[in-house]
């Protein structure tokens, strides 16, 4: 089997696992999923080997070539993201399977597998309509996961999430309609030949950008996120915050790079950057004000998403050096946040379970009784704050240098001020946890596997800062060099 054909197995394995876990009785689903995980890694290994050997892989599904058929494209970025997805999902699955949940939430498993299929589909698609299908599958699976608890709060969060997701994908679909009318093709590669200054293309890109920002929960369109991410089961929150919001961001990034010839793009990019700055400050401020631990972590996601959107002002109309630094910094930020935030949500889930309360004020004394969970939370916090040697630090450092190289110093304020704000809310949690003389003397123990899953994710976000170089070199696209030549 060649590497190109193996690409489709990255979609087939999770889809089959989803159907199998749906048909299986509830108590088999968790352990069955853990047994299916190695298959997914087994599908990924030959793909990665083929990519390292021969570069970007392309598979026309079923032998039909575009425009009628659908091509899967495994470039460095896509395979890096597939690897991230597999890593985060494996640890979240371990956490969820180890969880001695008194209520039956076994529907988590088929939905999570559908989620993984949708994510892999989005990373590997080279076609704007296939991306739409991926977005919808992702949205429906994510809404199902949010609604899983069945409480009034969970259902309201799921409903709000669903409405936002539907509106976002419809705006995206209308953009697809306009792009197809303009280009006569749906392949991202063909869209690069469009004239960026054309009105149809502009309207299409604007609609798609707004829809995708709504799905990524960029400030001020983030209203649906805190309740959806803060109220879900810990493993679900981790998957949603680490991976799902990144999918729509990556689509926007790919579209932006494909349709970059517009002279108005600089203005639009600065506007998007301003929204990102708003997200960093508003999300950080709201995170600090939360009384419930998981809502604090959810608002922290709103803030961290803001950094990703600094990509647009830093790469549009700037020089080669600034653009390359912005690309590396943004992707590293995405990876570091995914690992750190998944670790933080799992650790928060363990802490909430240990004290039996969702309130931050009730954490008093937990530092002595569950040091491992608190340690994981703290290590993940190091990356969220952007302290060395974490991935978050290196990412901010690259973005900082990019801002300096392009002479856009106002973004420095955002990068530094955001770091300070995140320190404030992370230390708020630690301060409560280290309070001595707890008001309670019974702490429940989360399973060791669940604590280790959180710790592994947090540690990998820490190590990422040192080990990022090779990863970033692999993900730097050929397409970027073309963009850079145009910009430089």
């Amino acid at each position, binding site marked *: 089997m060649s590497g190109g054909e193996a690409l489709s197995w990255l979609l087939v394995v999770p889809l089959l696992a989803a159907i199998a876990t749906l048909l299986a009785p509830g108590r088999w689903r968790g352990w069955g999923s853990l047994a299916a995980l190695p298959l997914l890694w087994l599908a990924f290994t030959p793909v990665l080997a083929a990519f390292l050997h021969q570069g970007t892989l392309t598979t026309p599904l079923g032998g039909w070539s575009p425009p009628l058929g659908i091509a899967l494209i495994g470039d460095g970025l896509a395979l890096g993201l597939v690897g991230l997805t597999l890593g985060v999902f494996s640890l979240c699955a371990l956490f969820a399977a180890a969880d001695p949940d008194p209520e039956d939430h076994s529907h988590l498993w088929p939905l999570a597998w559908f989620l993984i299929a949708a994510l892999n589909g989005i990373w590997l698609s080279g076609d704007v309509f296939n991306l739409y299908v991926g977005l919808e599958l992702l949205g429906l699976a994510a809404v199902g996961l949010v609604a899983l608890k069945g409480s009034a709060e969970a259902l*309201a969060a799921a409903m709000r999430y669903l409405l936002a997701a539907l509106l976002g994908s419809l705006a995206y679909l*209308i953009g697809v309609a*306009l792009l197809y009318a303009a280009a006569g093709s749906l392949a991202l590669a063909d869209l690069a030949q469009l004239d960026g200054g054309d009105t149809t293309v502009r309207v299409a890109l604007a609609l798609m950008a707004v829809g995708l920002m709504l799905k990524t929960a960029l400030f001020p369109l983030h209203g649906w996120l805190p309740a959806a991410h803060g109220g879900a089961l810990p493993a679900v929150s981790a998957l949603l915050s680490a991976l799902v919001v990144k999918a729509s961001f990556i689509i926007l990034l790919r579209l932006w790079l494909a349709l970059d010839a517009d002279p108005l793009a600089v203005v639009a990019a600065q506007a998007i950057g301003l929204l990102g700055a708003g997200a960093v400050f508003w999300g950080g401020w709201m995170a600090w004000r939360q009384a419930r631990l998981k809502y604090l972590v959810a608002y922290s996601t709103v803030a961290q998403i803001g950094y990703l959107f600094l990509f647009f002002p830093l790469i549009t109309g700037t020089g080669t050096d600034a653009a390359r630094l912005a690309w590396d910094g943004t992707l590293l930020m995405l990876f570091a946040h995914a690992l750190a935030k998944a670790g933080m949500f799992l650790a928060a889930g363990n802490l909430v379970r240990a004290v039996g309360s969702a309130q931050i004020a009730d954490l008093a004394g937990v530092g002595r009784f569950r040091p491992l969970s608190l340690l994981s939370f703290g290590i993940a916090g190091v990356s969220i704050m952007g302290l060395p040697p974490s991935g978050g630090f290196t990412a901010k450092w690259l973005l900082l240098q990019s801002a300096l190289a392009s002479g856009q110093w106002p973004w420095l304020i955002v990068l530094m001020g955001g770091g300070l704000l995140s320190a404030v809310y992370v230390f708020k949690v630690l301060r409560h946890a280290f309070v001595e003389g707890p008001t309670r003397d019974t702490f429940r123990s989360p399973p060791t596997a669940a604590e280790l899953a959180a710790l592994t994710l947090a540690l990998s976000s820490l190590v990422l800062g040192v080990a990022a170089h090779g990863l970033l070199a692999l993900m730097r696209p050929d397409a970027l060099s073309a963009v850079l030549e145009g910009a430089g």
Partner: protein
Amino acid sequence: MSTDLFFAWIGVALCGLGLFGFIVHHHLMRRLLAFNIMGSGSFLLLVGLAQDGRGPDPVPQALVLTGIVIAVASTALALVVLRRWYRVSGESSLPEDV
């Protein structure tokens, strides 16, 4: 104006109408219907605009078929969540709705 372009404009009008309903109404059933109207509008736009001056084109028609399946699935999920929400809370709109 060709027939295809006429359909495309009708699609734009339906999208606008649906978006208006989606924003104005708080009742979840109405918002869901508004979403479906927007969906139909975007399908008309997709087929009409692509075929304007180029004749019948199988690609957008295949896309719309896929789109309809997705719209039906999303509507079904929304209805299930809506029914559950109504049963648990007795409300037909979301709290502190914007």
